[in-house]
């Protein structure tokens, strides 16, 4: 149970990586931007790959009527997400410590992971909803009103995961180091559960 508990503690502590590294990265590629342009989605706000990328993305987007990217205080998520992630990390560590001293069973590890997965999926849904709104809720006075073959307004929603061509840009949307650490951490908590399961058998 000791190995399992230590693994649990390490796994949940990896969530703290999100306070150091970005969750997600969206980058845009076009010939006129040889060094790229893009942004990181941090737990507590957006940040350009380069110092002024957010302003420059807003500058590009205004042609097609997209709103400006939200400031840190313009989305509730940026104040709630750090609390949720921090809380889950601490909870996971406490569960691990209690497991170490055999106060609780390894089933708690699985319980933590399920709660984390539920919260993660909710977060992704919320993120996707925001991107849909950001990419389709356009200014009616937009300078360029682009439509698809059926005459419907184009959606400029960046992909949730993967790459997509949007007008003259190719947008890439992939997890950044913070999310990778979080994934690894969640996997470790699952490993902790398995170890616990085997040890008790």
């Amino acid at each position, binding site marked *: 149970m000791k190995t399992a508990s230590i693994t649990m503690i390490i796994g949940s502590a990896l969530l703290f990586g999100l306070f150091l590294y970005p969750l997600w990265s969206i980058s845009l590629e076009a010939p006129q931007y040889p060094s790229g342009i893009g942004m990181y989605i941090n737990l507590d706000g957006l940040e350009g790959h380069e*110092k*002024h990328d957010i*302003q*420059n993305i807003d*500058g590009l987007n205004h*042609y097609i009527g997209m709103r400006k990217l939200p400031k840190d205080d313009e989305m509730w998520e940026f104040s709630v997400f750090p609390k949720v992630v921090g809380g889950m990390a601490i909870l996971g560590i406490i569960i691990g410590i209690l497991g170490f001293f055999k106060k609780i069973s390894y089933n708690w590890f699985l319980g933590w992971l399920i709660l984390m997965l539920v919260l993660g999926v909710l977060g992704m849904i919320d993120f996707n909803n925001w991107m849909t709104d950001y990419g389709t809720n356009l200014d009616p006075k937009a*300078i*360029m009103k682009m439509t698809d073959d059926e005459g419907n307004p184009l959606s400029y929603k960046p992909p949730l995961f993967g790459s997509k061509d949007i007008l003259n840009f190719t947008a890439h949307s992939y997890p950044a180091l913070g999310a990778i650490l979080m994934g690894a951490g969640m996997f470790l908590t699952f490993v902790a559960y398995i170890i616990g399961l085997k040890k008790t058998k």
Partner: protein
Amino acid sequence: MKTIQKLLLGLGAGLLLVGCGNNSNDNSSGAMASSNAEQVYVAPGEHDEFYAFMSGGYSGNLTVYGLPSGRMFKEIPVFSQFPTNGYGYSEETKAMLNTSFGFIPWGDSHHPDISQTNGELDGRWIFINENNTPRIARISLTTFETDEIIEIPNSAGNHASSFVTENTEYIVAGTRFAVPNPQKDMPIDDMKGKFKGPLSFISIDQETGRMNLDFQLNMPGFNYDLAHPGRDKSHGWFFFTSYNTEEAHSMLEVNASQNDKDFIAAVNWQKIAEYVENGGGKKVAGTYAHNVFDESTMTATTEMKEGVISVDPREVEGAVFYMPVPKSPHGVDVDPSGQYIIGNGKLSTQLSVYSFEKMMKAIEDKDYDGDAYGIPILSFESVLEGVVDSGGLGPLHTEFDGKGNGYTTFFISSEVVKWKIGTWEVLDRKPTYYSVGHLMIPGGNSRKPYGKYMVSLNKITKDRYLPVGPELEHSAQLYDISGDKMKLIYDFPTHGEPHYAAGIPADKIKSQSKKYYELEENNHEYAVKNEANTRVERNGNEVHVYATTVRSHFAPDNIEGIKVGDKVYFHITNLEQDFDVPHGFAMIGANTSEILIMPGQTKTIVWEPKREGVWPFYCTDFCSALHQEMQGYVRVSAKNSNTKLRWKLDEDWNE
């Protein structure tokens, strides 16, 4: 008949060109040409290996090229007004061209030189001199813009300039046209013995690069033509060529060519600097403008300074000597080790090579051959180390490859001759097209030349390119000097008249090149950093427009309440914070230039409306897909009208 005449003429010209020196193989066709092409081919999107900063001569500017491609990247305005971006027209930069004679819109730039540390190029700044109204400019190698210009008083024809010492302690300014010092009304015929040729030493602040006129060495009135610093073992000395030791003042082409020998002045500047530091020299009159561009306020200011420390060369023991040089020397060059000083006697076929060690010995032994106005003349035989006798005619300048060889240009025989340091034997010669002046090997004036390419900077272009009427750009040729023989690999026109040039490996400076100005660091007095603060203010008949640009509009773009007779200052701040997104501004009927405003920058141009009406302005730099829409209107009313001062962007008027 006519054809025969042409043929004869052609033959004649050909003979003249071929006359001195054996012409080598023509590399311009066949397999050779294709390998040459490969050497200079820089594929689309790739970068050159070297920057070459070419003096713009009578354009007053400095041009930036790439080597080996010969592509021009930028013209940096220095001593001349530049309507392309508003330099010398904008309120911020007008002061750069102030002198003690008032505002001067033009200059004649000559010899660029890059700052050094321990005798190697360090890429902090590049300096260039102005010959006509003596001045020296310092150009930043992060913004590639002129940051400072200092005038040199009591001097004329600032030609022996702007060469830097090996730790950029000093740059020098000579006097090519001897003048009364101090200036006074006197008969020209009384020149002899009365005119002077001051040599100025400008110290450099190592942090900021700021120039300070430290002292002037009040030399006899010969014509000080070119200069190079000692380096390594000869560090601490500076060498200046002089001609017209005859002190002629009319028909110089004959009367200044009578003496068999003129001089190289060897100046121990360290000794003199110490002398001045200890209170030596005396303060004499001399008014000069010192113009500094502040990158933070983006504004240049002029400080008119008075007085300069003048040093009599005879007062500092063991600091100044003359070395005789045959036949009116032009260039003086020092090899990378600092051991050899090359005097290029422009009316001879030979180069005179002096040894620094022999010079020091002759000084120690007081091995003099008389004096000139009290300055000891070292005996020619005891300082001469060797002679490069190439048979070429009219040697002007020498550069080095760092591999033990010198390369000398010959103006009259139109060729470059390669010779070996130490044995002085001629190794190779190649023609130039035509009449080469300076040549440049990157790092040429340093302990560490980059001996891969050599550029000849030619005075005469003639038939090298498609004809464009009588007035031509100059021509340059690029030679590969990595092998035993020089190989002509490329030929390209250069802007203005490049005198000297300075080259540096691109890797040394390209990463420090600024991409845009940080808006938050913009401390311009009239900057506005967001559209909410844009406004128009009237103060009597002066109107200040605090405007911004961003793709693709001005804020404000409608202004009313301007009156005939007003003086309207457009202060435009470019809010963009991305690389290569400039905006321009031009106003119909403005008696000035446009301005180009880089991202984060503020510039000001003045418009004095003369007629009532509604007058448009627009962005002159194709900034974006909506560039054509980037325009605005100013309503101009009669002088005594009651039209309210108001402005807007989009819907609501502000007052």
